[in-house]
């Protein structure tokens, strides 16, 4: 019986291997992003990448439940908002430092995920999607009407002098950049591990054919819940980060209608159900949005979304695997 197998990687990590092929790309990307703000110092362009990180993380979180497990979640905004509001609320009312606030937000998001998922995951996939669809709407309305959370005005975090403890940096935005960067690395590393783990295999099986998966001993509801909880936790954490980054948390900015579908869009453009898809998607969509908004202003309202809409329609019709699919095809072509 041969010991090595092409399908599953089992060899240990070592430096020479780290610099080969795909891994080289990852290392270079990490170096690039690490060096970026030191080279491109303009705050505008640094902030764009911070937003890219935020969306890349949130899109990857969506990808876990939507891409790998195949359960289309349309309520990710709720987890984002949960994380943001929790962190802000705890900070303003109980003086709890953001680092703990982030964890609290993640936990509450996980609880919410269980509440939503438990009844809906035993139904066919589309029910879950529809169930989550309304949740985002409802959440915004509920928050708008809850004075505890500041209603329409939201919660404004106090502007404090620069401190790591309170996650506030004003002289330079660099610390925010690197915090987001670290969270991004952690998220993608976690998903990379998940892909090769038993959970990852089971999620893919559930997505491919739930009935067959169950016949092989897979408790589909349990694994969907696990995926959903992880997704919610990550989204909650980045929501909390966002709150401390912009220092204003209101129902319109952290619970926007379009948030969940944006994540879906990014993941599909980049390659749904793949490790790097969400990053590619975010890296393309975010800068485009920021740039159109920056240069076209109000006159360009809706234009960027129109471009994405057309893009995603083309993609889903002709290359459902997104950019990754296109890359694969090009590789196959070149190999000939």
């Amino acid at each position, binding site marked *: 019986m041969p010991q090595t197998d092409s399908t*599953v990687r089992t060899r240990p990590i070592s430096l020479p291997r780290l610099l080969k092929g795909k891994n080289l790309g990852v290392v270079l990307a990490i170096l690039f992003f690490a060096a970026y703000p030191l080279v491109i110092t303009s705050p505008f362009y640094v902030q764009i990448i911070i937003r890219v990180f935020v969306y890349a993380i949130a899109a990857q979180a969506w990808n876990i439940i939507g891409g790998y497990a195949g359960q289309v979640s349309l309520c990710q905004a709720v987890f984002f908002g949960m994380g943001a509001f929790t962190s802000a609320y705890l900070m303003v009312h109980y003086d709890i430092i953001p680092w703990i606030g982030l964890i609290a937000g993640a936990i509450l998001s996980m609880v919410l995920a269980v509440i939503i998922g438990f009844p809906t995951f035993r139904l066919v996939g589309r029910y879950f999607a529809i169930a989550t669809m309304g949740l985002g709407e409802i959440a915004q309305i509920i928050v708008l009407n809850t004075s505890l959370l500041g209603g329409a005005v939201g919660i404004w975090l106090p502007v404090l002098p620069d401190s790591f403890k309170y996650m506030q940096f004003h002289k330079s935005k660099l610390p925010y950049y690197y915090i987001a960067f670290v969270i991004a690395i952690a998220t993608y590393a976690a998903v990379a591990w998940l892909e090769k783990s038993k959970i990852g295999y089971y999620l893919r099986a559930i997505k*491919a054919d739930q009935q067959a998966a169950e016949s*092989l001993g897979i408790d589909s509801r349990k694994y969907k819940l696990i995926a959903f909880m992880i997704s919610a936790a990550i989204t909650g954490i980045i929501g909390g980060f966002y709150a401390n980054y912009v220092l204003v948390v209101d129902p319109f900015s952290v619970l926007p209608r379009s948030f969940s579908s944006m994540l879906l869009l990014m993941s599909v453009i980049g390659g749904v159900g793949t490790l790097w898809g969400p990053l590619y998607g975010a890296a393309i969509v975010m800068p485009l949005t920021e740039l159109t908004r920056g240069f076209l202003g109000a006159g360009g309202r809706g234009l960027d979304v129109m471009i994405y809409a057309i893009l995603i329609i083309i993609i889903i019709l002709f290359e459902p695997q997104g950019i990754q699919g296109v890359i694969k095809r090009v590789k196959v072509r070149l190999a000939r």
Partner: protein
Amino acid sequence: MDLLVLDKVTKTFEGIEANKEVSITVREHEIVGLIGPNGAGKTTLFSCISGSKPPTSGKVFFRGEDITGTRPDVVCKKGIARTFQIVKTFAGMTVLENVMIGALNNTGSPRVAREQALEVLNFTGLYPKRDLEAGQITLVDKKRVELARALATRPQLLMLDEVCAGLHPNERGEAVLLIEKIREQGYTVFIIEHVMDVLMPISDRIVVLNYGAKIAEGTPEEVAGNPLVRKAYLGERYGEKYSAIR
């Protein structure tokens, strides 16, 4: 021991009785065949046992335990694995990965699952095809992958649903050998089949369904010689052929 006992299992769908009070016993290490014309309720019976379509009435016992209506994944954990009549391999994954999913029933480590899966692939003759994408292989291979995948869960009872469909007459001998090998490993096999060349030589007993009810049961010769069965299903040719030998 009596591994699987069905006691008057009935399944009704909107007025249609797909299974009518079917009672069957499968003993350990047996190979029991389940035959009957299309629509007789064979696959429905499998679904009743595996939990994907719980029976309307009646009971299913496995190793003495009442598993009627238990969820499919729990049924698998208890030791029953099945394949599907309409093949359900996991597209987008390789043959090896498909079988690994089965093996992950026994372990939490994909590494260990891979080892187990490779063994099963070797056992079933699929080793050379392990890296092919499961959606792109032939139907015959897909059925074999399903079999391997189910086997990888290390069940006690293996329920096969028409795994020999589409087999070339030359390939049927191989299938017979494989199922015998499976029994030698200690598995019990409950098999739905239309391909008599495979079923007749290896079954210890055969159960015949027609219109949802059991109409006959016995050794292959007994069943082949049964005029009721012959009338409903086998046709004179097989009846003659198999009454003579064994």
